[in-house]
């Protein structure tokens, strides 16, 4: 078990290098000069431009710049934002809880809707209920997030007026963040109505973000469930005289979930990618929106730092899922 953990951690290091390399050089391929962006429409004279270039280190050869950056990263220094002049890591840590909250809700939505849908489809294979759930999941999977989010806003927020259009909390409430998670903070604040406001702000972004993972999970659950239902031990369970519900929910689902868990782990990456779009549309003050803004301003340290941190989170999540795998699947647990 411990050996496995170290092996996996060992895998993370080269991946991490790869990410820094990609991120560092790819953003520099995007046309646009951060100094000119900062200067705005009035422009900047040649002397001042050279001065600023030296200040940000752009006068150095690009390889040197990269190694400077790398040295910083390994000392835990992601640099300072060109725009806000604040350390990238501080900004990241302030905004990250908002993204985590959204992503967590998204994955919960995906799992708690997707798994039952998949089970329902599998036990009703070939009947209308199977076709219906699989059509829903195919539609969900093919729907571009930005468009789906706009449709949701148009219908539920604009036409029906059930949910707010954007943001994390109504402007009527204000309190100092404690955990950074609005659901928890609003409860801690003790302000009346704050919690329900936070919940209602979360609903649409959660659905928009969770739909694709939900569709993937539903399809995976269905096919995995169908495979397991054909196994001999399911017949044995029925031969014991167990109720059909117990056979399906205990004997079949437990086994069917093994591949589904892998898929859930992979969806974490999709979710963080999707968060960028979702947050932009719902003005959700999280990492996604932050990175998009940084890109528009060619704020190199913020983009690099943000993407690096996201990559780190995804890798950690995958590691956790791999460890979790052993909990669900005894065959793996004992091999390691």
């Amino acid at each position, binding site marked *: 078990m411990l050996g496995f953990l170290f092996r996996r951690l060992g895998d993370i290091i080269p991946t991490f290098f790869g990410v820094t390399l990609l991120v560092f050089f790819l953003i520099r391929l995007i046309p646009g000069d951060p100094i000119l962006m900062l200067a705005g429409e009035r422009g900047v004279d040649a002397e001042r431009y050279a001065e600023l270039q030296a200040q940000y280190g752009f006068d150095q050869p690009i390889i040197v710049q990269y190694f400077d950056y790398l040295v910083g990263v390994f000392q835990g220094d992601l640099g300072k934002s060109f725009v806000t002049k604040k350390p990238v890591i501080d900004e990241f840590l302030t905004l990250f809880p908002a993204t985590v909250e959204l992503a967590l809700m998204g994955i919960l939505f995906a799992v708690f809707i997707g798994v039952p849908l998949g089970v329902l489809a599998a036990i009703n294979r070939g009947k209308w209920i199977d076709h219906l759930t699989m059509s829903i999941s195919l539609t969900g999977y093919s729907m571009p997030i930005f468009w789906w989010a706009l449709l949701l806003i148009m219908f539920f927020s604009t036409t029906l007026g059930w949910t707010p259009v954007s943001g994390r909390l109504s402007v009527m409430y204000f309190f100092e963040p404690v955990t950074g998670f609005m659901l928890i903070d609003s409860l801690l604040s003790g302000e009346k109505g704050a919690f329900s406001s936070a919940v209602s702000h979360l609903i649409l972004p959660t659905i928009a973000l969770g739909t694709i993972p939900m569709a993937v999970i539903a399809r995976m659950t269905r096919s995995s469930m169908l495979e397991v239902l054909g196994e001999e031990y399911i017949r044995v369970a029925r031969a*014991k*005289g167990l109720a059909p519900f117990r056979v399906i929910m205990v004997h079949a689902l437990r086994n069917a979930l093994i591949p589904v868990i892998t898929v859930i782990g992979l969806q974490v990456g999709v979710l963080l990618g999707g968060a960028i779009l979702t947050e932009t549309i719902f003005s959700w003050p999280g990492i996604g929106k932050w990175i998009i803004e940084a890109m528009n301003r060619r704020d190199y340290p913020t983009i690099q730092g943000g993407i690096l941190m996201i990559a780190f989170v995804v890798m950690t999540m995958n590691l956790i899922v791999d460890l979790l795998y052993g909990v669900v699947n005894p065959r793996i647990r004992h091999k390691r």
Partner: protein
Amino acid sequence: MALLEVKNLTVEFGSEDKPFRAVDSVSYSVDRGEVLGIVGESGSGKSVSSLAVMGLIDFPGRVTADALTFDGQDLLTMPAKRRRQITGKDIAMIFQDPMSALNPCFTVEAQIMEALKVHEGGNKKQRRERTLDLLNQVGIPDPKSRMTAYPHQLSGGMSQRIVIAMAIACNPRLLIADEPTTALDVTIQAQIIDLLLKLQEDSDMGLLLITHDLALVSEAANRIQVMYAGQLFESGPADSIFAAPRHPYTQALLEALPERSEGHDRLRTIPGVVPGQYDRPAGCLLAPRCRYANENCVKARPEVSDFNGRDVRCFYPLNDQGQPTGMATGETV
């Protein structure tokens, strides 16, 4: 009254207008304390008929019977819930492949205790004690440490012992063993059969032993039922079937036994395979493979009839010399 009474059991798959009969009007009965052996090749409907008794034939399979009773209770008409109280408790089944019969995600203990919980109740401590007893009973060495083992940590023979323990957990009155030794090592096979017969004798269970191993039924069974392509071909007391088979198929099966092939260069076999859904002959189902078949056999399908006190489905049942009766000589095609 017999413990299990099956009359004209038919199991059909496929569409209503062109169904495939996996089991075709099969009748048998098992008494308490009796061992009934059902033999036949793969695809002869042995397993399907026993699954029908267990109520494990799923849609789109259709089960019909003139009678399917256990201890006088009609299994076909009773509500599903009542039937589940009988399956697993009074009627239990052992499946062919022990390695796939155990759920890989649960411990041995959990899987045996589950059946106990559903049918017997009691508290966890009692169930655990009973499980330990059962593991002892089926001859598992060091049962205490095996309780918490997962199926992948067990050998095939060990798994089959667990499966048997699971089946006899609630003291069933009828045990159906569907090829319980097929997937096992030859050395383990005898042990498992001995175990099954000992358990059967000790508790006076009825045992339905399904197998394609003739040597095995010859030792174990009181009565034998020979099936072919879903139909009953011959049934009767074990020793008399072995001494004088009345059906050409039984005769051919017995001749295929290695110990009866002495003096021959090669093992004698039955040419061809059991007909499936699409190549069922119009006449007797065995006709294409039968060495005695004549035109009549190709055209018409024989019914089961009594011949010298045995049920035989053949126009020309064999006499004590192993020659067909009632057929003009030289008539075979």
